[in-house]
């Protein structure tokens, strides 16, 4: 093959590659775009044929409806409260426990850790119903307590943070101890700053998991006042099947905060995702 033909073949390959990447990316984005577009349409144009690729006329009425007639702001506040408190709990309790498992020696440490790892295998559905009963007997149904307290720590978080802390050299901790730090001091002044990248990952995982969680909040909330966004959205979808444009306004409001967080913290997201899979 001549150099010229080779170049031509290479350029053609690159062209095909970019064409494929662009087409598949557009296919990925269309459902989001269609949802956003529909949320800005009048209901009578939602299913018009030919499809309206640009909303005409453009209207905010669906958002106004969802924000004023349905307590979406309340759902939003609930989601923020539950996700933030849960994430804070994880950052504190998971890292503290991970520190003990990674860097302290105490009788039974490895056995306890092994039991925790085993527990990681138990699907949530197994303890779901008794957990619901516990919440009911504590009169926690329809309170933030039921939404937050059972999820305040996680074995996965402890496991993840322990992986990060194993890489911190023990000499650093010993040096701090010799300087007179107590164990909590060592944790706060030496371990926490060094574990920050791990904590960023933990925050992302926990926040995303809590924000998107559906089954548990669906089960422990009955009144709209306590709904989180996914529960409220599912409710809207079922009760109000006729008005698609309003449902889409709710969908956009539910998805948008997470998408914004993602776009700002993309690097940490990707690193966190791959850390669990590759660094084992």
């Amino acid at each position, binding site marked *: 093959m001549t150099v010229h033909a080779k170049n031509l073949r290479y350029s053609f390959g690159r062209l095909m590659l970019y064409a494929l990447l662009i087409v598949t990316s557009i296919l990925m984005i269309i459902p989001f775009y269609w949802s956003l577009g529909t949320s800005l349409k009048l209901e009578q144009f939602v299913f018009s044929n030919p499809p309206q690729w640009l909303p005409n006329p453009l209207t905010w009425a669906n958002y106004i409806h969802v924000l004023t007639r349905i307590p979406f702001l309340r759902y939003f506040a609930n989601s923020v409260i539950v996700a933030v408190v849960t994430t804070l709990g994880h950052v504190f309790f998971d890292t503290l426990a991970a520190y003990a498992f990674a860097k302290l020696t105490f009788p039974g440490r490895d056995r306890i850790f092994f039991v925790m790892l085993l527990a990681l295998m138990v699907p*949530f559905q197994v303890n779901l*119903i008794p957990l619901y009963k516990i919440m009911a007997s504590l009169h926690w149904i329809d309170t933030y307590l039921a939404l937050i307290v059972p999820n305040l720590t996680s074995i996965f978080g402890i496991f993840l943070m322990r992986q990060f802390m194993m890489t911190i050299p023990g000499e650093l901790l010993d040096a701090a101890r010799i300087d007179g730090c107590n*164990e909590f001091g060592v944790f706060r002044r030496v371990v926490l700053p060094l574990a920050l990248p791990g904590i960023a990952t933990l925050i992302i995982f926990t926040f995303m998991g809590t924000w998107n969680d559906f089954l548990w909040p669906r089960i422990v909330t009955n009144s709209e006042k306590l709904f989180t966004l996914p529960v409220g*959205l599912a409710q809207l979808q079922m009760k109000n099947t006729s008005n698609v444009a309003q449902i889409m306004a709710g969908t956009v409001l*539910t998805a948008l905060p997470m998408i914004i967080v993602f776009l700002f913290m993309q690097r940490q997201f990707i690193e966190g995702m*791959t850390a669990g899979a590759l660094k084992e």
Partner: protein
Amino acid sequence: MTAIPLPRKLTRSVQKYTIPYLFITVPALSLIVFLFIPMVVSLWWSLNDYSGLQAAKFVGLNNYIELLSGDKIFIKSLVNTTVFVLLGMSIGPTLGLITALMLNQNVRFRSLFRTAYYLPVMTSLVVVATIWVMLYNRNGLFNTILQNIGLSKIGWLSDPHYSLVSIVIASVWQGFGFETVIFLAALQSIPRELYEAAMMDGAGAWAQFRYITLPSLRPVIVFVYIIGIIGSYQVFDQVFVMTAGGPVYSTSTIVHYLFTKFQDLRLGYASAIAYILFAVLVVFSYLQMRFSRERA
């Protein structure tokens, strides 16, 4: 300030033995109260006829026997879930690998493309489901396109022949970006020298893929499949929002069926379903442990 030696030494050793336990107290308690006790209770209930209102009545293995021999809807749910897992797992990771290979070709705007694939992964499944319910609507975008190219409409979610596949499509769209990201990171960690050496030896693109890329990816591929299978067996949110298990149970899944039994206040029966699911997942978790030990 100089401390008196003895008490200080004493506090040190007290600290040494109490502090670690103090640090793990909350997670340990949480594990016992919210996981181990409920697990045991659930196992006990699965051996009982229990509604939550009246006292439990011990029935031995009856719930399990009824589920596995007499309950056609449960068997259907088991089969549906397995079909969901098999279909999803044969499409999702493949798409993930293809897109990762494309992104690994030194492309411009790589992070932009990656974002497109990854965006649905961090979107709530309820959001994904509501969007796809609209797309799948009788008069929705998909049917309009079908009609305009001269085909007839499809009852994506209303026809029992298509409903499960429609949920698989939405779920794959939602999830494969996770695999893209994982595979891309793994591809980038394969040493370049391997490919250079292979090219010296005259290996073509396919030979390089077959003898370098695939073997290097093996552990990650195993990880992706096991995690995917375990996650997919627990499918619930999409089903709940998109079809509620219908039409005629064509999309009923294990966890969705468990949920309906929970609502019917058949708590013992629902617990038995949970334990059957658990048994299925234990097999895959065991496989994962076997494989990850192999890697280490």
